[in-house]
């Protein structure tokens, strides 16, 4: 296996799933985003989004907080320092791979 492929094989599999990388790409640029925004951007059903969020929370990449804005319940998601670091590493690995495999 070439070193390029090795670098791709080393990527964080938890983040490599497109829906989860989309979630982290959103959360990395904001303080927090609610469930509805993430659902809209990922195009996932509520159930599927919940599962992906739970996996990211279990890994310590995000924090989920249930709160209210006025009388409206909100499920806010924030990226943790660890999550942010993992996502940036993942993105750099992908960029590196694309750069190295350019013809």
């Amino acid at each position, binding site marked *: 296996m070439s070193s390029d492929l090795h670098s791709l094989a080393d990527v964080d599999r938890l983040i490599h799933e497109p829906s989860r990388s989309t979630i982290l*790409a959103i959360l990395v*640029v904001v*303080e927090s985003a*609610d469930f*509805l925004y993430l659902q809209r951007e990922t195009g996932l*059903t509520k*159930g599927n989004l919940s599962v992906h969020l739970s996996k990211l929370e279990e890994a310590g990449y995000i924090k989920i907080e249930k709160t209210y804005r006025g009388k409206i319940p*909100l499920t806010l998601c924030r990226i943790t320092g660890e999550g942010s670091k993992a996502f940036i590493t993942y*993105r750099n690995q992908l960029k590196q791979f*694309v750069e190295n495999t350019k013809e």
Partner: protein
Amino acid sequence: MTDELSGITRRTNRWKFTAGTTELMLGSVFFWAGLALLLPRKPTFFIGLFVIGIVLSGFLVNFLQNRFIYPRIGYLEYRLRPRKGIWRLFFVLLLSLVSVGGLIVLNIIVPDILRSPVWFTPALTLLVGITLFVYAFLVKQVRFFLLGLISLTAGIFLSPLGLGKVLTIDPFGIDKLGLFFLIMGVSSLFSGGSAFRAFLRLTPLMEETPDEL
């Protein structure tokens, strides 16, 4: 995939400008300040009208966000200090230093006639215009660039070289300052209103999805 992730990041960063609430709030600040300056004035009246106007506008923008924006796109809370904030801060500081330095140099070299208070409003329009250009460049929104152009155009018309000669009633040019604020207020409100209308048309409410796993 990296392009896709960058696109998501860019889109998320731009939502705060898409619905036009920034201009609605900016426009209301200018509008109420302009109205307070142009109406028969006493300091208490000016402050009262300005404060009440801003509070009412704040409630209105908050209502629009809760009633129309969040149900469509969801709730996003932006960072007060973005990651690249230090460079932006450095850039703004540098620009401020250059502006202050420029004003000092101008103060030394310009003839006495240009130091008159009637030049205060044109100088302010220049400052507001440049600030809006820089902001438009930073957030990559053409609407703020157009507002900057309006500010500069207003500056030309309100200077003693343009309509300012006709409009000057008081020696300190408060009427011109009020007119400038009013022009900027109406322009920003129009820009924000148009953006909000386009947002409502292009961003329908999300359909309910089944809750299956």
